[in-house]
């Protein structure tokens, strides 16, 4: 009981902070709207196979007699060259895009966070070495490294995710390192060091848990960018392969037909646009809310 109340005392300010953030989030209409859109996207992603009007069209089946029909009451977004319902495929694409983005960011975090924490906590030669490598990765123009790695891994969605994660982790390393450098000098870390806690336990038991909040925020902001990058790789032919209903791939195959079938390219593209927009708006809003300098109340 006593333990519980002390635990409550220790997290009370955090709850207060969270409540304040939630309040500010609700007041910031655009951010709130973005959050609602994302919640809907998640629902669509989870239930896509059940709400799609033509579930069999998502992957395999073809019905040539219905090919390239314009949007109508039967096919809301029209059909593609194989007569598949574009609406069903776009709905299912939500699942693929969100999954890809989450896994990619998780992988990038898995590489980036430990490296940053190690660099920031240990300092010295190790810090110098890790950060120089980070700099070199960041000196590639955006997307270029992902294209090169994906090409050499061989075209597939899994490889595209790997390639994006490999070009993305340095951002997290930089962020975490900055946090770790300031945490290193704090009393509780010094105390842990004084009682002889081994360095690895200090890094993963004290440093990482305390710098994870800004990392989570940054990661949620990056989801939009990762979705855009993944769709670009698929568009180039380096990501998802047919018949996967991936948005970028759908736009890519539509190139042959779009002059006579605008709906084929427009709808998957709009899906990418609105999803990325929602994540970017949320990211912008979060940054404003969480930064005491810019928030107003």
């Amino acid at each position: 009981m006593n333990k519980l109340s002390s635990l409550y005392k220790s997290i009370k300010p955090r709850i207060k902070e969270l409540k304040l953030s939630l309040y500010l989030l609700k007041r910031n209409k655009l951010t709130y709207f973005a959050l609602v859109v994302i919640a809907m996207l998640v629902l669509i992603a989870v239930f896509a196979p059940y709400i799609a009007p033509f579930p069999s069209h998502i992957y395999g089946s073809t019905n040539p007699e219905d090919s390239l029909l314009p949007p109508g009451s039967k096919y809301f977004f029209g059909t593609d060259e194989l007569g598949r319902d574009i609406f069903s495929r776009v709905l299912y694409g939500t699942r693929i895009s969100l999954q890809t983005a989450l896994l990619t960011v998780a992988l990038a975090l898995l590489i980036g966070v430990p490296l940053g924490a190690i660099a920031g906590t240990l300092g010295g030669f190790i810090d110098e070495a890790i950060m120089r490598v980070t700099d070199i990765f960041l000196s590639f123009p955006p997307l270029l490294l992902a294209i090169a790695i994906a090409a050499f891994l061989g075209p597939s969605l899994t490889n595209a995710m790997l390639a994006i994660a490999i070009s993305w982790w340095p951002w997290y390393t930089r962020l975490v390192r900055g946090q770790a450098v300031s945490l290193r000098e704090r009393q509780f870390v010094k105390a842990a060091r004084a009682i002889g806690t081994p360095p690895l336990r200090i890094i993963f038991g004290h440093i990482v848990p305390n710098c994870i909040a800004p990392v989570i925020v940054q990661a949620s902001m990056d989801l939009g960018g990762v979705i855009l990058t993944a769709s670009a790789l698929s568009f180039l032919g380096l990501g998802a392969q047919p018949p996967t209903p991936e948005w970028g791939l759908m736009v890519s195959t539509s190139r042959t037909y779009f002059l006579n079938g605008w709906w084929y390219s427009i709808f998957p593209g709009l899906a990418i646009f609105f999803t990325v927009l929602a994540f970017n708006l949320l990211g912008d809003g979060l940054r404003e809310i969480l930064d005491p300098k810019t928030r107003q109340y």
Partner: protein
Amino acid sequence: MGSFVIRRILLGILVLFGVIVITFTITRVVPSDPAAQWVGPKATPEQIEAARIELGLDKPVYVQFQKYVAGLLKGDLGRSLRTHQPVSRELKNYLPATIELVLVSTIIASLIGLPLGVLSAKRKDEWVDHFCRFFSVGVVSLPTFWLALFLQLIFYRILGILPMGDQLSMDIKLLYDIPKITGFLIIDCLITGNFVILKDALVHMILPGITIAAYPIGLVARMTRSALLEILGEEYIRAARSYGLPERMVLWSYALKNSLGPTVTVVTLSIGYTLVNTFLVEAIYSWPGIGNYVATAVISLDYPAIMGVTIFSACAYVVLNMIADIIIALDPRVRV
């Protein structure tokens, strides 16, 4: 100043070396059999064996790396699997069209993005600001390749006022002698004073230019806004205002001049983005540049070509960043 420049150049060389190490690793370590991949799926065992020797895969890694760097220094990027031409020669042919496009897009991005950012900062929290910010978030959320198709659909298919792609119209290509002096179409037209071709070339530049500039426009606007807002909060700006200086002067001359650093950074960054966006867009507009070249290389799994473009773009970007840092160092406050 001099010592800073030297230090920065040395650092740049170090980074270039690192970039080469990474590209080397990608070509040698990522694939399970680099030689087989290097010559493509249709190669005979003899060709794979020849590639193994050409790549030096039978020798220790450090010897391989030495050979790789020596080749790069001589400008040797290998031979394309598709055309069997040296990649470096092909790059040289495709480069001018891309450089022109990148420059035009960067200019468009700066010309639209910068004023948008300034306007946004000047009218902070008014509806103009909200609109500008929403616009800049909007354009960075657009998939570039989709924007290209969308603009083609509207301006070519529906309105019919702009060409679908390529650098010149078919009839111009047939009727006129296309000047070829520097390889840069617009410059060649200007040198020879051929304004008919020049006009046609500029018209063909509109859609790809705007498409590629879209993302950097948003980026430039956002960075300019935040940099300017920071400076507008400074004491000396309040002092200038309290002297009764006109707001326009405070903004454009006092504040903007001091945001030189972020501006240069933003232009460099936008060149980086435009360069990579060409990879996605040039193929759609059948633009004869390296973006189109690399898109074809990706489809036909032409590894030497992909690597050639990667190394070239990465090195160009590193050098560009180096130049930007040196320009920023011209500002006396940055010198240490």
